[in-house]
């Protein structure tokens, strides 16, 4: 049965509930991911993100509600259009690099010749072509993660679902992954990813849903979500020591001489900056805008309002 809720909708989750025994893990969750989105799926550990993804991919059966991909309940006919990188992921460590990539490409419906060509192209892109005949167990951890990603990307999917794709990656490989995701998105792929690295999310995501204890806490475009938390947050680069003053502002992050200060309802941004100068803080640079996603995330997780 096909549902046309939204012409551009790639993922449609409506009133999704998933319980294990009597314990609800996902509670009445709803959101849409549109075609071309780089969509962040955020939440603390154990908040129900992986369970929601498993429901989307029919690995788990929802207790109630619907989870649709390309307008349909997931079935394996869609597998060739989807690339899934689960949180719990491994490899056939005794197998060779090339045969692993080709095997999964074939399972996703590619011909052997096409699979080999795509595998070589991918290995070349991630600088592993010299290792095509190497047993996976002989590769470094970072190289193995590139193979895991290769399994996900080899069929050039229309939709990528990545559960913590940067987990365990060093900065170089993390940067390479971001480039790859950018390329795929530019080529029309929709990307849904789970991450705890809010700086990465801010760099690449355009929309997000944040869940807390299985329920939706925030949902919308990155800017919309951040605006809900004000537009008067002061981001400063400074020298000296920022004094503590709860009556005047709240500091959400202070490290490496970079701080994020949000005035209270009784004060203005000018009051805060004047206060800092009076306390011999040298301000090198400052901007006023929305809080960082890191700040938003911490607020949501600590707040009882959500």
């Amino acid at each position, binding site marked *: 049965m096909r549902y046309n809720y939204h012409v551009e909708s790639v993922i449609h989750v409506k009133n999704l509930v998933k319980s294990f025994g009597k314990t609800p893990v996902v509670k009445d969750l709803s959101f849409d991911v549109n075609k071309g989105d780089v969509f962040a799926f955020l939440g603390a550990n154990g908040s129900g993100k992986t369970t929601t993804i498993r429901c989307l991919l029919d690995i788990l059966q929802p207790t109630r509600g619907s989870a649709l991909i390309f307008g349909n309940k997931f079935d394996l006919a869609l*597998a060739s259009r989807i690339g899934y990188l689960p949180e719990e992921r491994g490899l*056939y460590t005794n197998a060779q690099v090339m045969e692993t990539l080709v095997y*999964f490409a074939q399972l996703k419906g590619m011909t052997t010749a096409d699979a080999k060509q795509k595998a070589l192209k991918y290995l070349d892109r991630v600088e592993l072509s010299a290792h095509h005949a190497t047993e996976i167990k002989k590769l470094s951890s970072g190289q193995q993660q590139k193979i895991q990603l290769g*399994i996900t990307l080899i069929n050039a999917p229309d939709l990528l679902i990545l559960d913590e794709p940067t987990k365990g990656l060093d900065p170089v490989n993390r940067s390479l992954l971001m480039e790859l995701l950018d390329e795929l998105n530019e080529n029309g792929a929709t990307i849904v990813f789970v991450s705890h690295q809010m700086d990465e999310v801010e760099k690449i995501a355009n929309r997000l849903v944040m869940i807390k204890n299985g329920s939706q806490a925030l949902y919308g475009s990155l800017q919309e979500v951040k605006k809900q938390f004000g537009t008067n947050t002061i981001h400063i680069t400074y020298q000296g020591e920022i004094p503590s003053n709860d009556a005047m502002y709240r500091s959400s992050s202070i490290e490496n001489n970079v701080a994020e200060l949000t005035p209270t309802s009784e004060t203005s941004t000018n009051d805060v900056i004047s206060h800092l100068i009076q306390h011999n803080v040298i301000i090198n640079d400052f901007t006023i805008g929305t809080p960082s996603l890191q700040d938003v995330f911490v607020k949501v997780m600590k707040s009882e309002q959500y």
Partner: protein
Amino acid sequence: MNHIYLIAQREYIRTVRKPIFWISTLLLPTFIILVSFVSGYSADQAEKSIQEEAQNAQSILLYDPLTFIPEAFVIDPLEKVQDIDEAKSKIIDGSADALFIIPEDITTTKKVEVYTQDTGVMSLGKFDPVVQSLIGASVASQLDPQLQPLIGGGVTIESTYYKNGDRTEISLEKYVIPLAAFALYFLLVFMANNFLLTSVSEEKENRMIEIMFSIVERKSLIWGKIVGITLIAFTQIAVLVSATALIIYFSTSNFDIPIDLTKIVFDPVNISLYLFYILSGFLIIASVMVGVGSVMPTYKEAQSFSSIFIIASIFPMYFFSILLQEPTGTISQIVSYFPLTAPMVLAARLTLDALTATEIVVSSALVILYVIGGFYVAFKLFELGSLEYNNKVSFDSIKEYLIKKSN
């Protein structure tokens, strides 16, 4: 279907290229010899029972027109007869246990005929020791050097068997097909299924299962593995058959094979039944392996847990002598209907002609139900346990899951 083929192909290639596969395949004959050694006690007991059975015979008729056997040796249960046809009819109607015919020209023919009851494969040569010792004692008492060659197995004994009034044939050739069937059963059920357990456990242990679930159907994944592993077993069989053929080919100049290969009986009904029992036995244990591999977090734990089921399934081997002597007895009947032992015991009883047509039909239907039930539970356990990476699935959660699913 393509997924099953791809998975089967991968399972096959990854296994046959491991050196351990070839080592274990070639070590199999050694293992079989060891098993024979272990079951030696059972065979010894069986031989003693056969001798006891011969000694406990109530009536043995002796046709000896020239009184080759001295009268002094003709004591109960031995009874001398004059009418050979009447004596044979007593064997046919079952009123006598055996008839020994000592020909007039025994010194030249060196041959004694024995007519007796067919009580299964164990009745083969049952009275041979009695005849040999009788001849030996008679020769010793006559002190005739010309008769000396008859002592110590110098007499050939030709046996004729009767069952329910009909003459039957008991020959080793009859057991070639059943023995081949048991070898096939052993390979498929125990060795191939061990590969299956390894494969299911590794899939989980390697954390590949979730990716696989997003690409292939769970049933395809399992059937692909089963098909691949069956092909692996056939490869082992091909290797072993080739090795055996080579040994026979190179050895025929040195010793005689005690089996006339041209006399091997190819009964299509029995062969079909053997194949059915082999396949069903394989599938029942395969379902156990899938279930165990799914609920245990590591291969090591799965292997130790699965050994309980393996021991249960080879349990009939420990009392094989009872099966041979009483193939329709209570114990044989019980183990014929226990899921893990049914295929092996039914195949054994078929060999011993101890299965009625009704029993074949009923037991076959039950075995099919066991296979279906086994895979139903195995797939449910696979659904339940395959994503439990670090924990064993508890019995309570299995119970809850199965009850919930069936409601």
